[in-house]
């Protein structure tokens, strides 16, 4: 059980983010939920890549580093792009929220539904 404990904590973090998306009425809280869930996914990928006693995936000119002693570099590359995409989508969500605030004068999504028309 102990070998999977970081994965389980990471899943709990993801669940908190999704819970915020499902249950909150304030649109900023929903954006924060998206951000938290995104962090949890990135963390999960890097957790899967970790090797006990491994080194980071950078060779050196002056000392000999065995390729077998490195952590898995492939999820790091995937997460690197995923982080920047996450920031771009967060900025897009913020722009939508500002626009909705300008139209309805509130961040409450239930009021937005009532005011439609």
């Amino acid at each position: 059980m102990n070998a999977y404990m970081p994965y389980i904590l990471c899943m709990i973090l993801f669940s908190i983010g999704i819970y915020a998306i499902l249950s909150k009425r304030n649109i900023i809280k929903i954006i924060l939920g998206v951000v938290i869930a995104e962090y949890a996914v990135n963390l999960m990928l890097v957790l899967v890549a970790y090797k006990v006693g491994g080194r980071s995936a950078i060779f050196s000119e002056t000392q000999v580093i065995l390729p077998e002693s490195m952590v898995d570099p492939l999820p790091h590359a995937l997460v690197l792009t995923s982080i920047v995409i996450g920031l771009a989508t967060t900025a897009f969500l913020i722009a939508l929220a500002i626009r909705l605030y300008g139209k309805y004068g509130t961040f409450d999504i239930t009021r937005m539904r009532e005011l439609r028309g």
Partner: protein
Amino acid sequence: MSKEHDPGMTVIVKTVTRLTVGLILLYGIYIILHGHLTPGGGFAGGVIIALAFINLDLAFGGSVSARIFSKASTGVVEALGAVMFLTLALLGMKYGGFFDNFLYNDGNPGQLVSAGIIPLENIAISLKVGAGLFGIFLTLIILQKFESEKK
């Protein structure tokens, strides 16, 4: 510009920003150019350069960085980064395939000038990411100023 309508933060923040913004830019450029040797690369370096301009904007109030780098020029720089990245990718077609590393010739790994087209691609990515994020930031700020003028 009178004292009451002076946008931005206090004189302490302005002085510290004036001293550090060049260092932040330099650090971003270092991160980009050493992307194939040390941790970092185009993504992190581009965001750091965007942060230097954001720092100017936040400390001095919206209009300072627009003198250096307007909203239209962010679009131009971002497109320049994209075109540079795609040009490098397409030039590889001549030598073997899309994204072929055509400048690489087994030479001196670990030096600053090595690894073929990877440093050039890092520069292209950093232009794209930095200009894109700074464009987003400028857009949000410009609209905010606009709303407060309406009230």
